[in-house]
């Protein structure tokens, strides 16, 4: 289901030396035709959700117009087509994260639901008083609250890997933190606030040596980095479609087959059963036993198209493009003496967005001011309240990037930051 827009991008890549032209890519995203407060939209909030290309939007439209049917149930033509397209995305996802089995890919609503599924199913069955759960101080609430709740319910202790002032995991005492009684180590691969890319392979390796199971929150990393979950050796990987060109309301849990096989479902109903009697029910095979109820079919099919789009660009190319943007943004921001940057300053060891604060202007006021210039940034605690507090603030401003962002966007942000100083009369 390649749209003409998508082909244009593919052509551009093959025809262009380094193969990546965000100006061409932007043309695939209809939202960039929109004016915000009379200005050209400069979208710097992709870490919250990315914009969607025509290739994705058109598939949703086409599905409801010509393909709409429920999956796995009907025997008619439409049902079969919908099922085939829905299952094709599962295969694409399995391939995208490094070539895992299709049974190991479970559709969820988002990364948050994927992590909750593990905490509730695997966690409740395997964690007890006296055990330890290890997470880090830079987790998003999605990979924090489920473990707080699990430790409260089970009596297991929750221990945090601390972070250094420059925004890296402090691995000095990691050998002690991941102790012999540690049952679960759950961490983000890329911080949504600091952009830090964590050495997940090393931590997973240590966790496995201690007999712990590992979960990687890939909500920020999977959209931006080439991922090989098998090389990483994570037992679970959670991520969301909407942060990588796909629709909202769709996410994924990857889990190793042997672990998933031993887990009980947490949502019950249609699709997840193999046999039901009035007093009995047996679970369906993987992956269906975790997929009760009608899923986001249109979204899943459209996400297949999003993955085609990302594959056509190449995840290596995407990473290099973003590394360039981040390096440029950091360099320009460092020149502004009124801006404090949070997180690593080395673009090799970070991705995502840049969190910062003006020393005088509150992030809310700054975000409102920038919005009037058509610049969309995020202001707040970014669902990582303990982390932002660790840096002694309640909120930060975050500018985050994706495939359609350009150096011009960053220049506009820098101009905006300077103009805000003048507007609020600090200069």
């Amino acid at each position, binding site marked *: 289901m390649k749209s003409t827009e998508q082909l244009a991008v593919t052509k551009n890549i093959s025809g262009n030396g380094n193969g990546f032209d965000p100006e061409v890519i932007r043309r695939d995203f209809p939202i960039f035709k929109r004016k915000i*407060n*009379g200005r050209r939209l400069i979208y710097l909030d992709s870490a919250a959700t990315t914009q969607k290309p025509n290739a994705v939007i058109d598939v949703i439209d086409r599905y409801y117009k010509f393909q709409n049917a429920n999956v796995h149930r009907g025997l008619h033509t439409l049902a079969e087509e919908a099922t085939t397209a829905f299952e094709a995305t599962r295969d694409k996802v399995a391939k995208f994260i490094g070539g895992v089995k299709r049974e190991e890919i479970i559709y969820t609503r988002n990364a948050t639901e994927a992590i909750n599924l593990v905490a509730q199913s695997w966690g409740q069955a395997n964690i007890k008083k006296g055990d330890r759960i290890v997470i880090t101080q830079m987790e998003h609430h999605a990979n924090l609250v489920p473990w707080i709740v699990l430790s409260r319910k089970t009596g297991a202790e929750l221990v945090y890997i601390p972070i250094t002032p420059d925004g890296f995991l402090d691995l000095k005492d990691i050998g002690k933190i991941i102790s012999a009684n540690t049952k679960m180590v759950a961490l983000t691969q890329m911080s949504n606030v600091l952009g830090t890319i964590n050495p997940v392979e090393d931590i997973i390796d240590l966790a496995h040596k201690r007999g712990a199971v590992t979960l990687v929150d890939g909500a920020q990393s999977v959209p931006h980095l080439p991922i090989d979950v098998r090389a990483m050796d994570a037992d679970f990987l959670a991520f969301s479609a909407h942060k990588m060109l796909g629709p909202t309301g769709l996410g994924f849990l990857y889990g190793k087959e042997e672990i998933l096989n031993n887990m009980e479902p947490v949502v019950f109903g249609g699709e997840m059963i193999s046999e039901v009697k009035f007093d009995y029910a047996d679970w369906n095979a993987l992956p269906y036993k975790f997929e009760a109820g009608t899923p986001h079919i249109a979204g899943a099919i459209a996400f297949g198209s999003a993955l085609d789009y990302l594959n056509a660009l190449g995840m290596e190319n995407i990473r290099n493009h973003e590394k360039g943007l981040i390096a440029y943004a950091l360099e320009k921001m460092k020149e502004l003496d009124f801006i404090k940057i949070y997180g690593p300053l080395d673009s090799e060891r970070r991705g995502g967005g840049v969190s910062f604060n003006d020393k005088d202007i*509150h*992030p*809310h*006021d700054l975000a*409102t*001011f920038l919005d*009037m210039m058509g610049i969309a940034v995020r*202001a*707040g*605690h970014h669902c990582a*309240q303990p982390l*932002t*507090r660790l840096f002694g603030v*309640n*909120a930060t401003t975050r500018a985050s990037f994706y495939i359609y962002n350009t150096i011009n966007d960053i220049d506009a942000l820098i101009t905006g930051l300077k*103009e805000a100083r003048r*507007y*609020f*009369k600090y200069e």
Partner: protein
Amino acid sequence: MSEPLDDLYRDILMEHFRYPRGRNKLEHVHLHNEGQNPVCGDEIEIALELEGEKVKDIYVSCMGCAISVASGSMLAEIIKGKSLEEVKKIAEVIKSMLKGKESRNELELGDLEALKGVRKFPVRIKCALLSWTTLIDAILAKEASKKAQISSSE
């Protein structure tokens, strides 16, 4: 910049933000509460010294944006000398003003009129209301505990 922005950050509002009122700690605290804006994590602390049912003095400390700090400062200014009943009324008027409802209002709002510009920025209404909801929650909690005391002594 633009007109709605100037309407949001009116001079009076920015003056309150730069020189917030009610920053002196109180000797006698009769009513105290802390509030938080869950959207951004901004924090506020409010304390009242009462004389009977009237506000004798007030302490407001707000870690937040220009809108929330200025709104807290205006609150400190306007409620001094008012009864708790009057304070509740003012809070209601401000709530409906921010939500765009024109209410028949006989109250003299003074500087608080400057908050009208927030209406065009729905995401910022929470900022403007943070100090008011924190204060009203404290008043309501006090009233509830009083009622409970009365009913338990009956």
